[in-house]
């Protein structure tokens, strides 16, 4: 059990999402940065679909009411357990009564408080994710509030002292310029409906993330894009990552809490493997879209899968040796 001692709006319980109900108008929800949750769950030996707390506002303070293993992933931030610093992306085990505080991130935007066994809220339509628009899932379909108590699994052993290398360090092929991120995207159905100049600018000019950016979508600002002629599209199903261009010409990237259908022209779709980078990009960051084809988009999953495979091996190895250490008698052979 954990108790929320301090939180601002926008923090919710999320898992990997709720696929399968878009035909009823229910979007996927789920963590904005699925890689960070996968890493947290892997470190703790959880199931892939275990839920965590997604942080978007700080500071966030909780009290562990029972011994609990945890890891905070997604961000680099000042994190303390009873005032003592704790590393991000690493496993620690709190004793009952200890207080975890997560401060404002130095890098990244969305932090994930993952706990051993996952956050246990009722499964609604196959997922524990909070569906804010539909007001269900998570804790009563709403943001977490001070005083909320969340059920967790008491830790059976004292895990600590191991962690993951933050994925940005491993997966970023080219060093990024300060405050700029590169996202690979596949041209969309309506790409050719834009003027030649607009098409070229979409892929070359930097797009700034505006304050009107959240779990629903990111609104970007930059010199507007123009269509060759106005077009009235019929409503069609959309997915996270699709880049739509409303009449004013500045693109929107639809994300986890987006509607399931839309009607704006589609200029491109950010590949799934890069959505976690967008989830961690803060307001004011610039985005450069880099065109890629289907094969490159599929191949982009490979480094992420290898990273997770390596992590799984490391965690299995560490936990096995930790168990044998704990099982050894004092004075026994190391």
């Amino acid at each position, binding site marked *: 059990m954990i108790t929320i001692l301090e939180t601002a709006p926008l923090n919710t319980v999320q898992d990997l999402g709720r696929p399968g*109900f878009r*035909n009823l*108008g229910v979007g996927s929800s789920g963590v904005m940065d699925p890689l960070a949750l996968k890493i947290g769950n892997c470190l703790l030996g959880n199931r892939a679909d275990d839920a965590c707390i997604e942080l978007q506002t700080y500071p966030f303070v909780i009290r562990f009411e029972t011994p609990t293993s945890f890891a905070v992933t997604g961000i680099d931030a000042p994190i303390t357990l009873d005032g003592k610093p704790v590393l991000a992306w690493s496993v620690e085990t709190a004793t009952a009564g200890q207080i975890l505080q997560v401060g404002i991130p130095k890098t990244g935007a969305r932090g994930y408080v993952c706990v051993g066994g996952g956050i246990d809220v009722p499964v609604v339509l196959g997922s524990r994710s909070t569906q804010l628009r539909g007001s269900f899932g998570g804790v009563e379909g709403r943001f977490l509030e001070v005083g909320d108590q969340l059920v967790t699994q008491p830790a059976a052993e004292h895990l600590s002292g191991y962690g993951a290398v933050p994925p940005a360090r491993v997966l970023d092929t080219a060093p990024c310029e300060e405050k700029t991120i590169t996202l690979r995207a*596949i041209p*969309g159905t309506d790409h050719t409906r834009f003027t030649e100049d607009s098409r070229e600018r979409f892929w070359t000019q930097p797009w700034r993330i505006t304050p009107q950016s959240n779990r629903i979508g990111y609104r970007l600002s930059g010199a507007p894009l123009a269509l060759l002629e106005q077009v009235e599209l019929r409503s*069609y199903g959309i997915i996270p990552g*699709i880049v739509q261009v409303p009449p004013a010409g500045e693109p929107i990237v639809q994300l986890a809490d987006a509607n*399931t259908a839309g009607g704006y022209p589609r200029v491109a779709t950010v590949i799934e493997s890069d959505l976690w980078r967008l989830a961690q990009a803060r307001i004011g960051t610039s985005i450069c879209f880099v065109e890629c084809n289907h094969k490159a988009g599929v191949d982009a999953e490979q480094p992420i899968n290898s990273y997770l495979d390596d992590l799984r091996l490391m965690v299995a190895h560490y936990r096995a040796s930790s168990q044998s250490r704990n099982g050894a008698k004092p004075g026994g052979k190391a």
Partner: protein
Amino acid sequence: MMGTRAMLFEAPGAFTMQQQQRIWALIAHTENRPDIQELVPGVTNLLLIFTHAPEHPEQIADWLRDAWETLPPLQIAGRLFEVGVRYGGTLGDDLAAVSAHTGLSPEEVIRLHQAGEYTVCAVGSAPGFGYLHGLDPRIATPRKSVPSLNMPAGTVTIGGMQAGISALTGPNGWNSIGYTEICLFDPHRSPPSLFAIGDRIRFYPESIEL
């Protein structure tokens, strides 16, 4: 393709019930493919979301085109819902705008709205929201340039050539002409959505406030 893991099939031609029934036929034909995670019907289109990024999407596209050309339209009898509407008043306060746009009196707008039978083409956008076909073209009214910020769930609306009942309270660009008290979505009900594809809806006036 939409990204690497989704493909949108768009039917050529106008928005007719027959084209929509061909989309329904395509859904029935596609839903048993083992590579499908979700099928998302739209208005004369269908989004396929795959469990994994397909290696050869062009083969699936060919398969879909072939199915589209050969499958007969799928008729779905659906259930008939009779929905009582409180027309006008503060919960239907775009009635005047619809009247002004169409050049018809508010009484005539209401008469034409409740005279038709509507069909649920697709459920989407928000949980339980049905895109309704069957609006009398004489009362078609474009979406508002400035959306209402907090339109209540249950508002009876017109958006261009489409009719609807808003499923959630929130911002909405469609024109409100009335209000009804039905609950369109309950995650703990099975099925959660009141409306399904092919269901028919008739509106009748519970009250009129002009």
